[in-house]
């Protein structure tokens, strides 16, 4: 398949060649410039077979590419003033160009020429016709000596090794001396220093940001708290009232009790005006924490004067205060006591009084 392609390309080149043949009338002049190899030169009838030979052209192209690569890869080498490699390349290119007939090869030749001229320019710039030369490596060495390089004692003295170290402030010393060559304007600084411009603005921003949310939070807080407190208060007050209700119920007549009370037991002491044993009233045999709550709520009742507690036969009893008996809280004789209960005593009391059910129904 590649064969047929090659053949078709050859055909194309031939046909292209025939059109070139019209322009080929200039060719005799060109070949005249070139010099020798003129037996190829066809007449005005068109380009001869040899010019069109694709293999030959490919050869030329590949040689050009080789030359271009050589120039690019060995750039440093070509620039070396000690040799004439660049000239050799140019001469080779010249020889090759003698065989060039068509634009494609000529383009490669032009590319090579561009590279070669660039190199030529560089090579020329390297020439310093007069005056002594300047060697950057020697310059570097002198600079190092100026900067007081500490050469280590066992320095082998080879070029490749970088022995020794520069002391502290070496570059500073060089800078000071070099400053002399500069007409630098001194950098502008306030003599007595300045306030640090940076920190304040961010701080303000942060403060403002912080202040705003806290204000909002405070606004939210009170409403929340109020709600909370109310609920607490409501809860406590409700509980206290509920317990007062229980107490009064138990203290009231049997008949009334029989209708309402679910937890009523015949063995209850609280019948018809009989005082209720404090322990039996308050203790919940199923839950210690509810027992403590009941004691807590009872204490409110006693504080408010709605119930009274007294000792009889060494045991505490409670009874609600009658409507009529209620005295203004300030005038009543007040005694204070602290009631405490622990889980152990709680269980002992349950055993002692044989409390099976809570008198105060759980909320």
């Amino acid at each position, binding site marked *: 398949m590649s064969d047929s392609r090659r053949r078709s390309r050859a055909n194309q080149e031939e046909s292209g060649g025939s059109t070139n043949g019209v322009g080929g009338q200039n060719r005799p002049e060109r070949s005249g410039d070139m010099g020798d190899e003129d037996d190829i030169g066809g007449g005005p009838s068109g380009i001869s077979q040899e010019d069109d030979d694709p293999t030959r052209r490919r050869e030329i192209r590949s040689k050009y590419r080789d030359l271009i690569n050589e120039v690019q890869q060995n750039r440093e080498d070509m620039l070396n003033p000690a040799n004439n490699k660049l000239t050799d390349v140019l001469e080779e290119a010249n020889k090759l160009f003698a065989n060039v007939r068509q634009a494609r090869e000529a383009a490669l030749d032009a590319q090579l020429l561009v590279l070669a001229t660039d190199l030529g320019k560089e090579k020329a710039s390297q020439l310093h016709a007069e005056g002594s030369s300047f060697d950057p490596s020697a*310059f570097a060495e002198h600079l190092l000596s100026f900067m007081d390089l500490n050469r280590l004692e066992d320095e082998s003295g080879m070029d490749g090794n970088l022995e020794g170290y520069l002391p502290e402030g070496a570059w500073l010393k060089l800078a000071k001396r070099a400053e002399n060559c500069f007409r630098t304007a001194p950098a502008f600084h306030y003599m007595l220093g300045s306030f640090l411009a940076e920190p304040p603005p961010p701080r303000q921003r942060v403060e403002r940001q912080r202040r705003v949310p806290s204000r909002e939070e405070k606004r939210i807080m009170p409403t929340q708290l109020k709600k909370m407190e109310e609920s607490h208060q409501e809860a406590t007050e409700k509980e206290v009232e509920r317990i007062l209700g229980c107490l009064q119920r138990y203290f009231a007549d049997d008949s009334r009790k029989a209708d309402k009370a679910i937890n009523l037991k015949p063995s209850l002491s609280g019948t018809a005006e009989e005082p209720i044993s404090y322990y039996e009233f308050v203790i919940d045999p199923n839950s210690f924490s509810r027992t403590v709550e009941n004691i807590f709520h009872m204490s409110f009742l006693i504080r408010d004067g709605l119930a009274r507690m007294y000792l009889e036969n060494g045991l505490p009893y409670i009874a609600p205060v009658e409507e009529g008996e209620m005295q203004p809280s300030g005038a009543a004789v007040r005694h204070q006591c602290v009631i405490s209960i622990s889980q152990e005593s709680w269980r002992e009391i349950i055993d002692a009084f044989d409390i099976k059910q809570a008198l105060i129904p759980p909320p």
Partner: protein
Amino acid sequence: MSQRKKAGPASQNKTQRRSQLLLEEDEDATFSQITSSQAQRARENFTSDQIDHKVAEVVQFILIKDQKKIPIRRADIGKHVIKDYKHIYAEVMKRVCRTFEQVFGLKLVEIDLKQHIYILINKLEPIRGQTVSMHPGNQKMGLLFAILSVIFMKGGTVKENLVWNTLKKLRVDPGEKHDEFGDVKKVVTEEFVRQKYLEYGKIPHTEPVEYEFRWGLRAEKEVSKLKLLEFVGELFDQDPQSWTQQFREASASETSSQST
């Protein structure tokens, strides 16, 4: 539809930047469009005090901008300081230059006449043994000096490899982080170039691309080639005149800078 959408965020930034640059170029162009009659009329609009105040502002702006040694653009001066006073820009700048010379001993030099960028240089010649600024010397000056000397002594253009090799001999390796200079390659190819001390350009027709160094516009104005040659002569223990070509060039630039 999604395929036709050209502008991603990256290209949007590019177009924004381009349009911003165009805007600034337009602003800059208005400077040159002001006729002398317009300027005359405009000067009458402002009191002498106002103009003096504006001059002081420009002076302060330039002094602070010069701290980093990055050249100042005329467009920046126009945008940030002069603003409404654009029509008397020429008058303001004249007074600014005068202030710099008489009060500070500095010269405001326009180093690029096409792009209109300015630098401040010292009007007074440095004296041997005296430090120019109160602050401790900048070590990068030493590095810069070494590079500038090599470029100058080698005819004005060197390939980057020559610079890197010389620096390596000075124990400064562009591939490694240096104790005092940090990222050396960045300092040399970016910082010094931005400050216009050096020029870092591509060599044409090279594959792979190679770069070369030249003296930058700031260095041309700020550095005394003669003094540099003197120092090189001291280092080599040679008479500076022995480098005849460089000596000729240095003397020529010295006389030209003295005449300005």
